[in-house]
């Protein structure tokens, strides 16, 4: 449109021989030239560095930071838009894939000469998976908005690509679900061979100053004639296996895929909740060949979540041999399945949770804005 206006100005000035229009025509031509030079100069003097996040979650804001440096000594940079550019792949490679998150964009209002600034892009991932950051496109139409120029910053070819693991969406599980599941299994909770604050008797010993008076065992003390205190055994943490049984088949974005993703989200939420409650959590996905023994700690739980994030449902093993792992130590089993029917050959006294009917576990009315559950 600008070119059309310039041409009309030129024709109009020749037609009318209006000297001020000649001047305006010159201004318009100069505008295009100046705009191109300044915008190009801004971009050529920019240095970009990405501060990629390592981990994110579906439905939770993900902050992607950028450090923008302006190397120019005389030209400040203004109004620069940043946008992530995915790697070019063939259509066959892209077919069937869904984007993990919207394209991160950021805007740099201004960077002075020789200065640097940091900007953030906040995106909300919509799908679990592994996101690889490839290149960043910086563009600007400063100063006059006539043309938009862009420069693409690509990382060094032999440097490892920046990756971000997008974990499944963590949704609020009802507060006593883990305990109910463990109670139902009545296998999860045991006492440990150590003194602690549990309820089970561990031993009797002599009283030493400083012991709590409530610990005094009066009857044994009366019998023995010396003050004796009762020691209880420590509670052994709950051991919970979370088993994930997705439904085979289903194209990405279809109904089966949607239910599978809900099941994964449920499994992840249960793992996170159990870990918060201090339980030892393990993960089993028989059809995907995953079996990780229950362990405690935040790092173990995060490792399980990362495994769920990277789970590739297209490589499920639907052969007869894929069964639930047998464990030496007892634990409660929570089987999360995508379909309505319970999977066969599940461990005894397992608690079943269906992604199609999760009402027993979570409150759907609170999840209107959830990418997985809406």
């Amino acid at each position, binding site marked *: 449109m600008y070119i059309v206006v310039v041409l009309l100005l030129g024709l109009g000035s020749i037609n009318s021989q209006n000297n001020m229009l000649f001047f305006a025509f010159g201004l318009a031509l100069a505008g295009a030239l100046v705009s191109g030079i300044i915008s190009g100069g801004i971009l050529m003097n920019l240095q970009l560095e990405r501060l990629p996040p390592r981990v994110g979650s579906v439905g939770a804001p993900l902050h992607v930071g950028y450090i923008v440096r302006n190397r120019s000594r005389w030209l400040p940079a*203004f109004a620069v838009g940043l946008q992530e550019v995915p790697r070019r792949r063939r259509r066959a490679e892209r077919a069937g894939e869904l984007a993990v998150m919207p394209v991160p964009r950021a805007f740099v209002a201004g960077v002075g000469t020789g200065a640097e600034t940091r900007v953030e892009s906040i995106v909300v991932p919509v799908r679990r998976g592994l996101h690889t950051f490839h290149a960043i496109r910086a563009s600007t139409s400063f100063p006059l908005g006539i043309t938009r120029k862009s420069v693409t910053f690509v990382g*060094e070819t032999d440097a490892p690509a920046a990756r971000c693991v997008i974990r499944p969406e963590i949704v609020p599980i009802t507060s006593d679900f883990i305990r109910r599941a463990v109670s139902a299994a009545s296998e999860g909770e045991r006492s440990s061979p150590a003194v602690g604050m549990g309820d089970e008797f561990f031993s009797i010993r002599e009283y030493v100053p400083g012991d709590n008076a409530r610990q005094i065992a009066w009857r044994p003390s009366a019998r023995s004639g010396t003050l004796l205190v009762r020691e209880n055994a420590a509670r052994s943490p709950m051991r919970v296996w979370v088993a994930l049984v997705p439904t085979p088949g289903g194209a990405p974005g279809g109904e089966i895929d949607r239910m599978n993703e809900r099941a994964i989200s449920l499994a992840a939420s249960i793992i996170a909740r159990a870990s918060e409650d201090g339980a030892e959590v393990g993960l089993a996905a028989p059809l995907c060949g995953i079996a990780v023994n229950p362990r405690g700690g935040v790092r173990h739980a995060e490792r399980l979540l990362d495994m769920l994030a990277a789970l590739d449902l297209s490589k499920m093993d639907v052969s007869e041999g894929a069964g639930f792992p047998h464990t030496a130590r007892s634990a409660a089993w929570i089987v999360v399945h995508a379909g309505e029917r319970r999977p066969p050959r599940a461990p005894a006294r397992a608690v079943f949770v269906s992604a199609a009917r999760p009402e027993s576990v979570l409150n759907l009315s609170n999840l209107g804005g959830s990418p997985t559950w809406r």
Partner: protein
Amino acid sequence: MALSLVNSFPRWLSLTCALGVLAFFVADENALVGALAILLVVVARALTKDEAHGVLPQWLLNLLVLAAAAWTAMAAVDQPENFVEALATLCAWVQVVKFYERPTPRNHAQLLTLSVFTVIAALLTSNSLPVGLMTVIYVPVAMWTILLFQIHAGLRGPAAPRQFPAAPAPPGAEAAKGLRRVTLGASVVMALMGVVVYLVIPRGLGSDLINDWSSPGVGTAIGFNEQVVLGRSGELEDNDTAVLDLAVFDEAGRNIGAASRAFLLRGAALDDYDASIGVWRRTQANSQSRPLGTNTMDRLADITRAPEMEQRITIRNKTNNYLFAMFRPVRISFDRDTDLVVAPRDLTLMMPRRGGRVSYTVFSQVDYTAPRPVVVSERQPAIFQEGAIRDLAVELMSEAGFERDPAVWHDPNDRLIANLFERWLRTNFQYSTVMTAPTENEDPIEMFLFRTREGHCEYFASAMAALVAVGYRASEFNEIAGHYIVRQSHAHSWVEAHVADGLWDTFDPSPPDGVNQVAAAPSGLAGRVREIYDAIDHAWVTWVVGFDESTRSRLFGVPQGNQYRLMDNVGRFMSMGSGALLSRIVRSLAFGVLVFCVVAAAGFALRAGARWLRSRKPRAHRGVGESDEPDPAILAQLGFYKRSLARLRRMGLGKPRWRPPLAHAMGIAAKSEGASDAMRTLSELYYAARFGRRALTSEELSHAEAALRRLEEIEAATPQGAR
């Protein structure tokens, strides 16, 4: 980025649009309407609370825009010649309406675009000094606003940022300073380029192809009326608008203008009086059309030995056919090709086809003897054969001792009689701008002569009952500019009388004191200020608005002619033989390539020069008290390291640039333990020399050679496919 800077964008947008709207309405001479529009914009700004809501509902705003568009369509149909003005008015009012909308970036972009179009329309409408000044102010303001808009729109776009500096926050003043620098630099460059285009583009380019081009007018259209209508009531309008500029030179080229000296510039000579309606008209006369080339002097009449006065005249906005000059014009030339129409009977000069700004030079012989006998039928004055006016004329002549037969065309005492009548009218009547309507059946001239005994110049001229000449009286001389400024209020009527055989002379029976009082320029400080403004305005009209092909040719030393007529050039090309045409094309192409190479070479040379200059500047070293460059003697010892990297590459164990040497040595252990050991040794020696800044001993160098030999053996032992 200082938030206050970006938050000032709405104010700057309002200012930009207000300037654009005002510029147009000033050009359209409707400043009050412009002020009203700006007031509405101010009200809209005051009522806008936030960016989420507009002041008025959208349906109402759409209705207002539709109404404005409908009005524009009707105006365009009514007066197609004013289409540009109607369209610009629509743009201006749409801008006002849009200020009542929700302030979104899209809305802002539309406002800026409309504002630019409005200013362009202002330039199309008028090139007057106020419009020019407003344009000069508008350009940098609009630039600043557009720059702010880029930032403002981005901050409210989908990538709305959270931005914070990695370094300590730069103060807001720095961001504003940077933006001002860019604005100033860009404005200066754009203005310079605008001036270059303004100077370089040939005027009249394609005039034969596109249109019969004419120069746009400056200011009010000249209000000259070729009829004199007597018998109106009211008061003469005192309009100060400048309509033409006049510089007068004698034969020696001296400027003979002065505040005490007035000149009469005749437009038309009216020779027919219709007493029933009190109107003087010009009867149709044979006229000759003469096409004149640029700066070609055309002879209009017989030239005698009387001295000539050169008049350089610029009509600022010509809208009728007449040209103005002192009587008796003998030669004329124009600033560009013109079709001149001359009536030989009374030497009335006309230019029917050109409008707008017109400049020409005319030579007149004011005091001249009769060049030749005149045919009686050529130019007949109006004659009052009977009635009170005739009786009064006879009575006056008798009192002065003249006896004249009205049927005789020429009498030797005609000049004396004309002087008598002129003197009598000047001394016995009052000059007044108040117009009195005659009673029923009363002739206006008789009313003037016998009843009111006062009136303006048209009555005085009519009373002499010869030929009424209408035009302008140039009396306001600008000392600074050295020329006369003729205004609308200087319109005047006087008399041309036949005083000898073939000789017509000019008489002005209006009392000079009365005329001077009406035409007097303000005195004192106001007069001085006006004089300075008029001088600037004249310079503006002459050098900016009036910059034409002749001036451009003089500036660049290019001969003026028809070389820029497109069709002529096309015709010349078409008539060329194929050989000559091919040769011409090849020469043109070669010239173009040569120019391209020269410009490209200059660019590369500049770039290389800049790089060389940068390389000569000492580089700042961060955090290091001494140069980071190692001793060249130490560097010379480290050839083993490069050789080891080459070997690893050939073995398929190449080190990535981002990975430190020692880390890489440990990293390849899984693939080749021997290579890893060797590389570890080499890396440690490399670190010691490169970063420890010490020369390696001969023993260490032998260790390095041994490690290299081990690598060579491993490479030799590794099968080709495994690398």
